[in-house]
């Protein structure tokens, strides 16, 4: 089965190419590149990725303007049909601003931009993105952000935890996120927002401190799951 993925580019996106390269590396199929002003998405998509970067220069709030762009209406409609949607970093911010995921990403508690490899724990395996992981499996995936401090009210956080919607947790919380949350799933598990960049952890590195391929597994999970379905 040919895997048909789209990567959305906003003005200021800067991880869109990395995301497309990562998807192609795993699926063997080139990802379709979609511009933010497009009102429609290609038909028959298996996967939509919202990449990292600084859409619209982070004006107003990170992800706020992109969340209201024409293409997002099409992404929301596709998500409602069950198309898996992955938002990484700024993509996660766009997902919360659009209402596809609860909560928001505030300025890092330490006020500084953080750029380093983060240690994560897989908190839920009940999604197309995380089904191939072991519960509690540890991953090393880089983060690079200024607004990654996940916030939601206590009732929302309890709801997320109680229904297995926390996908990943930081073992070394770099940004003050409530309950160490690094990634959040939608109610049906088919939308994932995460601050760490799996598309930057695709190849074995000469030394563990320089990276690794833990991110690759996430893409393999999605693509394998779709081929099996």
């Amino acid at each position, binding site marked *: 089965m040919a895997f048909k993925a789209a990567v959305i580019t906003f003005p200021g996106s800067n991880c869109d190419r990395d995301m497309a390269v990562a998807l192609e590396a795993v699926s063997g199929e080139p990802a379709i590149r979609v511009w933010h002003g497009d009102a429609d998405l290609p038909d028959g998509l298996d996967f939509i990725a919202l990449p990292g970067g600084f859409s619209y220069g982070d004006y*107003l709030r990170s992800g706020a303007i992109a969340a209201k762009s024409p293409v997002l209406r099409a992404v929301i409609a596709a998500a409602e049909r069950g198309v898996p949607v992955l938002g990484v970093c700024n993509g996660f911010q766009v997902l919360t*601003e659009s209402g596809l995921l609860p909560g*928001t990403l505030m300025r890092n*508690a330490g*006020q500084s931009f953080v750029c380093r490899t983060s240690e994560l724990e897989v908190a839920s395996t009940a999604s197309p993105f995380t089904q191939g992981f072991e519960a509690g499996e540890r991953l090393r995936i880089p983060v690079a952000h200024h607004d990654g401090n996940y916030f939601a009210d206590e009732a929302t956080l309890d709801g997320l935890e109680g229904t297995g919607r926390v996908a990943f947790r930081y073992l070394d919380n770099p940004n003050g996120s409530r309950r160490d949350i690094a990634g959040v799933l939608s109610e049906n598990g088919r939308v994932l927002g995460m601050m760490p960049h799996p598309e930057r952890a695709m190849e074995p590195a000469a030394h563990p401190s320089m990276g690794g391929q833990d991110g690759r597994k996430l893409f393999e999970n999605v693509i394998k799951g779709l081929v099996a379905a």
Partner: protein
Amino acid sequence: MNIRILVRLKPGVLDPQGRAVHHSLDSLGFEGVENVRIGRMIEMNVADGTSDETIKAMCEQLLANMVIEDFAIEKLDAQTEPA
């Protein structure tokens, strides 16, 4: 009609930026400062007769993030119009 919208963090939401500014004021020797909170001010000119509901909708849909922020709408008269 000129309006001014103040977008502020809800009470109880930690404001690390406000705290950093507070520390900086402390270090400059200003005493007795508490609860520094940073918000955002948006001024705009809207067509006369724009309803309060419409302005509120602008705030709720885009200008404020209702998860963490509140907003207040101020209608400005001619004397206080932005330059």
